[in-house]
């Protein structure tokens, strides 16, 4: 058995309000797909904790309330936005299936994984993250030129599904590096090597970074916008957690 340390969570998810409703009315996000209760560092069993807390204590009330208090008009697939979304998906699938290059999707996945491990793993530096931010877009461009996606759309196609996921990973990986670069402190599972105490512990910057950040998608190939929401502590004073 091989044992090695690994980061196992992005520490993020979709931004929701206290009712677990996203910025899209009626779209509720539960479990670890949302912002995540555990904050900057996730420990084992956090998935269960959040799934149970959201599923037992929040969603039954807030979703029921939404359903009871909302008037639903009939919707059709003819809405221009629905048609545009459908066309987008169809184009994306067509584009993926037309890829007939030289490298398998798994090969790209592994290379991305190595980049993330090297530059956005347990220890991150400004220089490393900047390197990753050059390499990932280049890898993404190569993926959309040189990947092989076999099969057809009309039957079960696991290769197509996998290619869609890796295409997403190539975007979220870049975003994670961008986020890690912007957060100039060490906090939770985010350890920037430039920001550490003399004995190698994480050094937080509560003056400039006591906030959560959410990135707004602004379209393919353009830089997303960073929004922040300050963390306000009313009953607990911020302190450094020491395991020593």
């Amino acid at each position: 058995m091989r044992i090695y340390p690994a980061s196992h969570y992005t520490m993020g998810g979709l931004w929701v309000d206290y009712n677990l409703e996203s910025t899209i009315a009626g779209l509720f996000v539960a479990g670890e797909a949302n912002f995540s209760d555990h904050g900057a560092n996730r420990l084992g069993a956090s998935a269960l904790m959040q799934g149970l807390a959201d599923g037992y204590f929040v969603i039954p009330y807030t979703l029921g309330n939404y359903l009871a208090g909302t008037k639903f008009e009939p919707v059709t697939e003819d809405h221009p936005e629905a048609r545009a979304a459908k066309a987008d998906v169809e184009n994306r699938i067509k584009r993926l299936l037309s890829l007939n290059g030289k490298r398998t999707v798994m090969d790209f996945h592994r290379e991305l994984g190595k980049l993330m491990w090297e530059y956005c793993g347990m220890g991150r530096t400004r220089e490393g993250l900047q390197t990753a931010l050059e390499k990932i877009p280049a890898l993404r461009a190569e993926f959309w030129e040189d990947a092989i996606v076999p099969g057809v759309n009309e039957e079960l196609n696991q290769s197509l599904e996998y290619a869609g996921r890796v295409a997403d990973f190539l975007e979220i990986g870049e975003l994670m590096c961008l986020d890690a670069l912007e957060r100039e402190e060490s906090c939770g599972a985010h350890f920037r090597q430039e920001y550490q105490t003399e004995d190698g512990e994480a050094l937080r910057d509560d003056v400039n970074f006591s906030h959560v950040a959410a990135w707004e998608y602004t379209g393919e190939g353009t830089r997303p916008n960073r929004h922040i929401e300050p963390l306000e502590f009313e009953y607990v004073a911020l302190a450094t957690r020491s395991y020593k």
Partner: protein
Amino acid sequence: MNLTLHVWRQKDGKSKGQFVKYEAPDISEDMSFLEMLDVVNERLILRREDPIAFDHDCREGICGTCGVVVNGRAHGPRERTTCCQLHMRSFRDGDHVWIEPWRAKAFPVVKDLIVDRGAFDRIIAAGGFISAPTGSAVDANAMPISKENADLAMDAAACIGCGACVAACPNASAMLFTAAKIAQLSLLPQGEPERWIRVKRMVRQMDAEAFGNCTNHGECEAVCPKAVSVDNIARLNRDYIRSSLIAERRVEAAAG
């Protein structure tokens, strides 16, 4: 090591399937079984051939979705081990490995090694639940449960619903699965209110899904990755017989 695979290939539920032979050279014994299939698929993709469809996700032995029949044994040669936790060190250089999907009328093939296990979901939906409210559990001391029953319920609850029991049974019976799902509730006071209607409804659904009946072969327990005991089938039978002695209407009324 070098292996020769014989893999069941089937386009979809309607098409006819067949074994296709693939040479799998340079396989590391440290690989997991699914990783070996990944490697074979990578080579197929580079040769512009259709990769083998197989179910897989976390590879942590939690759900058994990966389950396939390897050399005639559900989940392969290792006892109490799901396919995803099987490693190639369980095989020898030069081995011929026959890989096929769960075979049962109630589990139609989706593609190659993937089957649709929706029949299990429908059995659960027929009665595999309790009406006790969640989120407001009573104090544990207020509801004494014997250690023996708590342990037996826990053992039954170890069932991950993978379907290996069905694949191993000469009758393609789902009795071990259904029995485990009934026993985990009927052994505890929380499962008592729906006890009789639950067993009736779940058995009825099991029959409707075209699973076979149990004729006490015990093959299911032998391949179960969680070692769920056939004793649970005896529990199911006892409850089922008793439920038939209670008037249908009364049972339905009790279930609300």
